[in-house]
């Protein structure tokens, strides 16, 4: 997208992914975290059987959903952490390094999600 001074920057697309990731994370993550992080470990809810989870995860819609949710939520977190770290500790100067680490991490996580859902299951 064109910048006022004529440069082309990917920033608007990153912000688009940022808000999509924020919405997806807000909708999907709390219930899964309550279940797998708290309710099942504390025995409030019986853990789903292995066969059941495997069947759910092998559904094509689940495969796409997990990849999409993981990638968007990770890009959201990367984008937000980039500016949080820079603002919190006044590290604007190091933006190229910080941005590379943040988006690189998100990219690796997304690739791992794609490999797990399409190759490993």
């Amino acid at each position, binding site marked *: 997208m064109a910048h006022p001074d004529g440069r082309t920057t990917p920033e608007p697309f990153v912000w688009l992914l940022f808000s999509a990731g924020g919405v997806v994370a*807000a909708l999907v993550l709390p219930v899964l975290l309550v279940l797998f992080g708290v309710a099942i470990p504390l025995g409030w809810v019986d853990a789903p059987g292995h066969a059941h989870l495997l069947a759910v995860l092998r559904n094509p819609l689940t495969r796409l959903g997990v990849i999409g949710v993981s990638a968007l939520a990770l890009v959201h977190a990367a984008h937000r952490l980039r500016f*949080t770290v820079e603002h919190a500790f006044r590290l604007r100067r190091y933006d190229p390094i910080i941005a590379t680490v943040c988006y690189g991490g998100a990219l690796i996580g997304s690739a791992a999600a794609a490999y797990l*859902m399409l190759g490993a299951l």
Partner: protein
Amino acid sequence: MISPLEARYYRRRMPLLWWAKRRSYATFMLRELSSLFVALFVVELLLLVRAVASGPAAYDDFLNAMANPAMIVINLVALAFVLLHAVTFANLTPRAMVVRVRGRTVPARAILAGVYLGWLLVTAFLAWLVVG
């Protein structure tokens, strides 16, 4: 005109921990920090997928690791931050999205009610999918 070099002397230096000085700044930082826990839990979910893909024994190991008291404490902290993320992001919707029906703006409260209803439906569906 002063040179940029001179201007440096007039610029106020920001203290390194500027956000610890006021409660509103600290709240802002906590909200931004929630993204760290969003990323952490995505990693946990991917580890769950990996365990399920590896077989019943690996899945049991994963469940045992999650039942470790230290892990439960970490996940409770993560849950607090993920809920902070969810609530602050949901409450932003009426400002990010102005809906007009027949020339009239839909009130923010109605949009918020829709957002939380949708959140409830997604939550119920996922809980049913996983445990049901």
